[in-house]
């Protein structure tokens, strides 16, 4: 009888360990998925912000004949109260006087992220004055 009880206890222990392991792995995957999703959110915001900045330069007639230097900075806060989401975008525009391109760099981050304060996306692209289009996209980690 003692043997049966012991074997039963061992089996129960194994079942418990398996269930616990599955639960822990599920939670880990869930957390990774959430972080990946937040990162993607920031990337989309930063990428679209770079596109809009390039479009603004085009509308402002920043073309081949425009020779002034750029060293502009600005920040934008985004809050969606419906979804309790907040994000900040930092813009940097830089170009030497007479340079053929303007570097547009946008950093998007979520200061209120419960997961990680490091969740951010840094996207840069070059606005080509002669064509009025964006090129040389880069993404920093």
């Amino acid at each position: 009888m003692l043997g049966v009880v012991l074997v039963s206890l061992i089996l129960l222990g194994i079942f418990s360990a398996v269930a616990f392991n599955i639960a822990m792995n599920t939670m880990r995957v869930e957390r990774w998925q959430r972080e990946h999703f937040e990162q993607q959110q920031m990337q989309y915001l930063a990428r679209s912000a770079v596109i809009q900045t390039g479009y603004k330069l085009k509308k402002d007639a920043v073309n081949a004949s425009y020779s002034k230097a750029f060293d502009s900075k600005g920040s934008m806060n985004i809050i969606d109260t419906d979804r309790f989401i907040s994000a900040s975008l930092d813009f940097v525009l830089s170009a030497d006087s007479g340079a053929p391109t303007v570097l547009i760099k946008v950093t998007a981050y979520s200061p209120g992220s419960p997961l990680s304060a490091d969740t951010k996306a840094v996207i840069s692209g070059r606005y080509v004055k002669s064509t009025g289009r964006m090129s040389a996209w880069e993404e920093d980690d």
Partner: protein
Amino acid sequence: MRKHQGTLFVEALIGVAIFLIGVIAVASALAFSLRAIVQSREAIASDMQIANVAEEDIMYMSISPDVYNLRGTLLKNLSVTLSDTNGARTLNCKLYRYKDTDKYKTTFYILGRQ
């Protein structure tokens, strides 16, 4: 002290009952984990779907910034002032929200032209 007849049987019954309670608890935990995995799979599919729409729109926007229609919901107007020694340049844009069903809270945001 001499044991009463049937004591061993009662002990065994109690042991089996405790074991069964444990097995039921573990089975419930397993069932919960499996349900969570299935829900997680559905959430990933939902995320992917809405992310694809947002990504496509960004691609269209990138290809032709003058002409495009964003499929997200217009949320609000935003602006940022980019200033340097040459003066200030104000970028006005619109914030679009891409969201799936309320079940999974999947939300992406895109800045569109004003």
